[in-house]
């Protein structure tokens, strides 16, 4: 009986994904790919989905988030943002433990306990004020630490940047019903629960408004900029803050030219690959 209920719930959740799959198939038209990147073999589809998301965002999410930012006093916004961030910190802590990074997990758990009590339910980020560092984590990062490769970059409907691995992480957590929103999902009062989820979505979008503006000011091509930033960031999260004593700059990018052309180094400066630390072979290959 219990098993049946769980199965129905899971399939109900999956059936909610079905329209999104259909949308994906619909959007997968053809866009011109001027500069194929090895990490983005589905760029043509991805660009179409990116444009869909962007149009949707400009028409709906962004105006709501902008209005919310203008109407809500700053201390209230900060409080709401910190409460959701505190919930995300708890989930980060769980993932740190799953990754075997017990030290991070304990630190993050302490952070959550401190903010939940002294910080009035997470409203005030007293832990950061006392020098505690936030270690961001999710199940996609955990899969990466367990050795799963990111796979191709993929733009998900509404959710945006992801990879096959991170998308699978989101899907698995969605099916299992475990995420940073688990405490909210446990609320029985459905209207209240949905209101909190809506506030969480608006808060998330509002917190990205400044970054969004900055990307507008500095990106030559928003799609490429966001993709490369996402891939770099995820890679850095998987590598974590662990230090390899033999290779202290383990995640430094290697800017040497990686094509087979001979190197006609007539510059008076040394090429970057010689200046880079010796073990930079482990750095991600330049695209």
């Amino acid at each position, binding site marked *: 009986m219990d098993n049946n209920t769980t199965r129905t719930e899971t399939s109900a959740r999956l059936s909610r994904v079905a329209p999104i799959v259909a949308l994906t198939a619909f959007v997968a038209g053809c866009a011109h790919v001027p500069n194929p990147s090895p990490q983005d073999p589905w760029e043509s589809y991805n660009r179409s989905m990116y444009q869909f998301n962007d149009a949707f965002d400009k028409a709906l999410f962004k105006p709501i988030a902008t209005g919310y930012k203008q109407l809500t006093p700053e201390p209230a916004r900060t409080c709401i943002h910190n409460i959701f961030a505190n919930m995300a910190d708890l989930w980060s802590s769980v993932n740190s433990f799953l990754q075997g990074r017990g030290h991070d997990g304990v630190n993050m758990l302490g952070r959550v306990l401190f903010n939940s009590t002294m910080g009035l339910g997470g409203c005030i980020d007293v832990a950061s004020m006392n020098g505690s560092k936030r270690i961001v984590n999710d199940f996609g990062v955990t899969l990466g630490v367990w050795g799963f490769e990111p796979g191709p970059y993929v733009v998900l409907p509404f959710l945006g940047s992801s990879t096959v691995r991170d998308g699978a992480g989101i899907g698995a957590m969605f099916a299992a019903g475990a995420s940073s929103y688990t405490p909210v999902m446990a609320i029985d009062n459905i209207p209240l629960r949905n209101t909190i989820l809506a506030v969480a979505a608006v808060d998330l979008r509002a917190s990205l408004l400044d970054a969004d503006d900055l990307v507008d000011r500095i990106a*030559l*091509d928003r799609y490429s900029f966001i993709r490369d930033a996402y891939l770099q960031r995820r890679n850095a999260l998987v590598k974590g803050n662990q230090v390899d004593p033999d290779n202290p700059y383990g995640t430094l990018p290697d800017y040497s030219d990686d094509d087979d052309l001979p190197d006609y180094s007539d510059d008076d400066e040394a090429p970057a690959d010689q200046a880079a630390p010796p073990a930079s072979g482990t750095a991600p290959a330049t695209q």
Partner: protein
Amino acid sequence: MIFSALRNRSTPLYQFCLVLMLSLVLATAAQAQKPVDPTAAPNDFVQTVGNNALEVLRQEPAAQQGDLNRINQLVDKYVLPYVNLEKTTRLAAGRYWRQASAQQQKNLVEAFKGTLIRTYSGALSKVDEVSALQILPFRGDANADDVVVRSSISQRNGPAVGVDYRLEKTPQGWKIYDLNVEGIWLIQNYRNQFAQQINQNGIDGLIDALNRQNR
């Protein structure tokens, strides 16, 4: 006794007091802007440049209100002298750099400068929310020519932001050439965009695209 001596402006005591007061005023002014020593240890160099920039931005009402043009001007004046623009641009262009003529290289550096100023400004635009720039302990070989300085910018209302600087030792001392914000390296993030523009419209097309954004 002392007061009467002070009232008489020609006494040595009065002159001594005047010099003392003047030097105190100068000392406070100098505290706001420390001279940058590019040949110092990389950590100290970044700390001085960063603190000077933060201090200047804090004292400017326009910058406080988020006036981007003013912040860009201040970044140009207080940060850019310590940034190796040519190297940043060369590495972002990758193998295409060698295909560019000397004039194109010069124009490309000049065109990319605006983007770099806006990027560094973006990191500093929330200065009223920034409480301190903390330089983290140095890792790696202190005698190397290519080093990373890690820092943590603490905010008043949220978690600290990790910012790393990649520096190169030049004959004139240290120069910053790459910047990492929360795991994202600046040059790495422009390589694909540069290649894309060059493949479509050539190097001049890339220069035009950058200049269009500068307007």
